């Protein structure tokens, strides 16, 4: 097993500010630069699969590159509260259900406050490479605030990539401005291309000074979304399409949506599970519409996979989220705190830090390649899912009891592929096992054969074993993908020697809601 590269193994200028950056980063970074041809999870595509200019755009964007999400962070600033459409999965009495957990009021910022916050975060978290505006309403229903924020940030921090998320209704009107501001990435939420289906999702839209309802509303919305998508791709702007999977309404229809957006040049498709708990007060929540199970979601994502990249690492984060996708550091950067912080933007130090992260990503890729090569002679048709406890950095470095989420990999002789994550409540709170016990975690991991952790206690280990899930500490602090493949090899060997019997696993629960620090 290869030794983890430490950041100080690389000679680079500005050692002093490095230490400061490392302390602020709290997590070392590293990841994979793929390369074994097209991996199943398109967003895991490495440099080898993409033209260099596209790779340059996605390699450090945690949402556009699955590998990058282990290492690079993004932040959202909540400058765009207004919205011009109503979605049945969103309750405007609170924050947007899709981008921001309902019931939690985010701090709304002025563009000036937002710009200051961006610089403060970028100076504290050197892996922060992307600024997104995702509401809590719609970025383009608040064009003045959105573009003013971008303008202020670009003036001080030209290296930060700009990104925005929109429902697409006003998109065609702002494509020129988006291109002029060098916004590299745009996300459009497209849940349907059939207005009849749209009428079940959108009760109304506000367009051209009028409120439209029913099929007519969805027809306008859909036309505007697809036109906006075409205009963006024609200008070389990368577009991610978000779709909410609503069982019984658009679950099968999303395959059509996938084809439509693929043919118009969308780069990445992110199918997300519906969030519909009754207490959120959304129409879907109140009528008891359920979200999809883990395997239903995976089956749809698999059906849409082909030439199209599928995103599977989305955490449905809040409109004010800060940090790596699997963590939430927004509480460290409230307006009060940001205004008090002494901020100095050190571009050179940020770039040097990111170069070190790149080097570690390469090391991880190499380790994975080597491990994969050892599987070359295996012919087994077995496919298993393995859960990982990680704090980021592409390493198995989290204690089972401290894990807020588990990352799920599917592994076969073709290699390891990231397929999703499962949010859980902490099993271990202040040193004691939680009162709700291990049951919810067993349900969340029910489709997994094993869970790889840095450390686990005897009691949860026994409970997992009882549910047929093997808890493994042998790969503590090793690279994730390399370890998953190594575990799989060992699993096959044990099946071969009849030490264990391979059994198919069942379905699993998806915990609802966006990722927030609890």
């Amino acid at each position: 097993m290869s030794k983890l590269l430490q950041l100080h193994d690389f000679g680079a200028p500005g050692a002093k500010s490095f230490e400061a950056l490392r302390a602020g980063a709290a997590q070392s970074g590293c990841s994979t630069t793929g390369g074994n041809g097209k991996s199943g999870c398109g967003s895991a595509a490495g440099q080898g699969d993409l033209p260099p200019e596209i790779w340059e755009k996605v390699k450090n964007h945690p949402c556009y590159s699955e590998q990058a999400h282990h290492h690079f962070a993004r932040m959202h600033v909540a400058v765009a509260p207004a919205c011009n459409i109503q979605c049945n999965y969103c309750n405007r009495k609170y924050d947007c259900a899709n981008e921001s957990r309902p019931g939690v009021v985010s701090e709304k910022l002025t563009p000036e406050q937002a710009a200051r916050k961006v610089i403060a975060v970028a100076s504290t978290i050197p892996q922060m490479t992307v600024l997104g505006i995702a509401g809590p309403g719609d970025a383009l229903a608040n064009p003045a605030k959105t573009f003013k924020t971008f303008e202020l940030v670009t003036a001080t921090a030209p290296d930060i990539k700009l990104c925005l998320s929109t429902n697409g209704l006003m998109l065609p009107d702002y494509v020129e401005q988006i291109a002029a501001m060098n916004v590299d990435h745009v996300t459009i939420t497209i849940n349907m291309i059939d207005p009849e289906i749209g009428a079940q999702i959108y009760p109304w839209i506000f367009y051209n000074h009028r409120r439209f309802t029913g099929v007519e509303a969805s027809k306008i919305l859909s036309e505007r979304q697809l036109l906006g998508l075409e205009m963006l791709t024609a200008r070389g702007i990368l577009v991610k399409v978000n779709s909410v999977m609503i069982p019984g309404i658009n679950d099968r229809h999303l395959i059509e949506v996938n084809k439509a957006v693929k043919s118009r040049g969308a780069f990445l498709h992110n199918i997300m599970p519906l969030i519909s708990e009754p207490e959120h007060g959304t129409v879907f929540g109140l009528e008891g519409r359920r979200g999809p199970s883990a395997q239903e979601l995976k089956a749809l994502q698999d059906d849409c996979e082909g030439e199209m990249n599928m995103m599977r690492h989305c955490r449905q984060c809040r409109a004010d989220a800060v940090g790596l996708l699997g963590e939430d550091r927004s509480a460290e950067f409230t307006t009060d705190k940001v205004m008090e912080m002494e901020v100095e933007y050190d571009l050179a130090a940020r770039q040097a830090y990111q170069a070190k992260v790149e080097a570690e990503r390469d090391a991880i890729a190499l380790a994975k390649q080597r491990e994969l090569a050892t599987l070359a002679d295996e012919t087994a048709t077995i496919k298993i899912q393995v859960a990982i406890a990680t704090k980021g950095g592409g390493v198995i470095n989290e204690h089972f009891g401290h894990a807020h989420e588990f990352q799920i990999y599917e592994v076969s002789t073709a290699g390891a592929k990231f397929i999703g994550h499962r949010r859980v409540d902490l099993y271990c709170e202040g040193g004691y096992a939680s009162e709700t016990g291990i049951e919810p975690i067993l349900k969340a991991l029910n489709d997994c054969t094993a869970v790889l952790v840095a450390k686990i206690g005897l009691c949860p280990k026994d409970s997992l074993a009882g549910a047929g899930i093997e808890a493994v500490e042998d790969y503590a602090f090793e690279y994730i993908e390399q370890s998953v493949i190594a575990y799989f090899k060992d699993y096959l060997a044990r099946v071969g020697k009849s030490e264990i019997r391979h059994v198919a696993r069942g379905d699993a629960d998806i915990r609802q809601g966006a990722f927030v620090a609890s």
Partner: protein
Amino acid sequence: MAYKIVTSQCTVCGACEFECPNAAISMKRGTYVIDAVKCTECEGHFDKPQCVAVCPVDNTCVPA
């Protein structure tokens, strides 16, 4: 002949502020208010009062 905003309903999203053709809507002490002197209920401008049409929460912009 004017509309008002029900404070307890309003989420302060600001969607109405930019749609009002009379610039009658402004932020006062953390909430949006409609200046009754400036409000024309959009008569002569649009079919419907714009604040009502764009407001994402029902029964928030109502006749005063």
